[in-house]
Each structure stands twice: as structure tokens, then as C-alpha cells.
């Protein structure tokens, strides 16, 4: 439990929060929201695309794994921009704890093509490769939380 942190979010003037039904496809709404916010504060369109994919993958994981496809569950996405740091937290209501380092084999395209590894298992890999920083092992009073950080450069 050493790495587990309990997080409380506040809604201040730098923060936007959206609450979604646990329905695949609705991650697009969180993508549009975060993309518009990031564009307003001045991120390049390239970085906005990275953000969109990362937000999409985190929301889908929250829906599929965190909330186990329960249609009554919620996914809450909290976006914060301050001091040139854009952070997105995606929260689910899954009580199951998990560790991104232990959970999954690193994706290997050769193995996938040879059917030696599942074709899935790309979400966390993409997130890690697209964000500046990510923490997977956060918890809220409700469930899991993934926090992704994008830094403004230039």
C-alpha cells in the first residue's frame, strides 16, 4: 500500500469537471471537452491529439475495467490547468486495486501478430507514451483514479 494515495479534488477557477455515464463511446465527450480546454489555454494541435488519445484510453479503461461495464456507474473526468501544467484525472467507481507495472505484459507487436500475445493491452502503453507524466495508482473515496500530466512547452 506504500504507493497508494487518497486524493480529494476541488473545483476551483482552474478546474473543469465532467461526469459521464459508464457507456463506451461516451469517452468521445471527455475527449472533446479536454481538447477544447487545452486549445483555449494554448496547446498545439499535435499535443491536443495526444491528449485526446490519452483521455480516450483512460476513460475506456475506467468503463471496462474500473466499472466493469456497469451501466449505472459513472466516470468522472477532472481537468486542471495552472502554471503551464494541464492535468487530467479520470476516476471510476471500481474498488479493485491494480498496479500498472505489475498488471500487464509490455505489448510486443511481433508476438501479437504471431498470436503469442493478446492483440489488446495497448491502452496503458499508449497513455505512457503520450503524456509527460502519469500516475495509475491513485485512489479516491469512490474507486480508482489515473492522473495524466501534459506540460506546456515553448
Amino acid at each position, binding site marked *: 500500500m506504500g504507493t497508494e494515495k487518497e486524493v480529494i479534488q476541488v473545483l476551483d477557477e482552474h478546474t473543469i469537471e465532467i461526469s459521464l455515464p459508464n*457507456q*463506451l*463511446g*461516451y*469517452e*468521445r465527450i471527455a475527449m472533446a471537452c479536454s481538447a477544447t480546454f487545452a486549445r483555449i489555454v494554448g496547446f498545439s494541435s*499535435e499535443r491536443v*491529439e*495526444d491528449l485526446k*488519445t490519452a483521455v*480516450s*484510453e483512460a476513460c*475506456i479503461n475506467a468503463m471496462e475495467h474500473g466499472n466493469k461495464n456497469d451501466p449505472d456507474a459513472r466516470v468522472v473526468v477532472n481537468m486542471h490547468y495552472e502554471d503551464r501544467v494541464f492535468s487530467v484525472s479520470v476516476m471510476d467507481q471500481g474498488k479493485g486495486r491494480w498496479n500498472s507495472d505489475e498488471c500487464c505484459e509490455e*505489448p*510486443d*507487436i*511481433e508476438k*501479437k*501478430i*504471431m*498470436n503469442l500475445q*493478446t*492483440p*489488446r493491452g*495497448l*491502452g496503458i*502503453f*499508449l497513455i505512457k*507514451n503520450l503524456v509527460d507524466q502519469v500516475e495509475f495508482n491513485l485512489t479516491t473515496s469512490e474507486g480508482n483514479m489515473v492522473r495524466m500530466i501534459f506540460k506546456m512547452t515553448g
Partner: protein
Amino acid sequence: MKQEIEIRLEKHGDITIFDIQGDVTVFSEPFFNKAYKSANDQGLSKIILKFYENAYINSGGIAVLIQLLAETKKNNQLISITGLSPHFQKIFNMVGISKFARIYSTPEEALANM
């Protein structure tokens, strides 16, 4: 909730273009299976996956594409990908898709080079 994807097939000699309109997600699997089967039934040997600049492709959709690549690899069929935005070209490189499919900007370019 509508999960919309449409795949239209276009024959160009021994090449079949899969014209892919809409979202490429985990829900796309039956659409790709059907397209691949019907192209196979017509005795195709080469495939071009034609995407559009504004496509939404997520990791579930990429997994579906990897399964398709695995099939074409097994059957010794050549496969190319066109029309990806710079973002998805980057993603496809990251994942390694580009090791098993040539990436071209347009179907015309792919047709000329396959």
C-alpha cells in the same frame, strides 16, 4: 448509442481497397471480418486500408487491425494503410503496426507501389 463504421470495398485489379468511414473501435471487429471474408472470397491478394483524416481510432480498434494484419500475414497477403493523420501515423509507429503494413499518404500512392 450508435457505433458507426462503414467499410466499402473497391477492387483495383488484384488489390482491394477497404474504404473505412467512421470510428475504428472494438465494435468494428465484425465489420472488418466481413470485409476481409468477402475480399478473400473474391480471391484478393493485396489490401489497402483507406482511412480518413478525421477518423477516431482507439486501442480497441487497433487490436482489431492487428488481428487483421495477423490474418494477412498468415495468408501471405500484402497490406497497406493510407490516409492516416500525422497523429495516427505516430500511434501506428509506436505500436509497431508499420512493421507489418506499409503506410502511404493516399490510396493512389499505395496503388502505384504495391
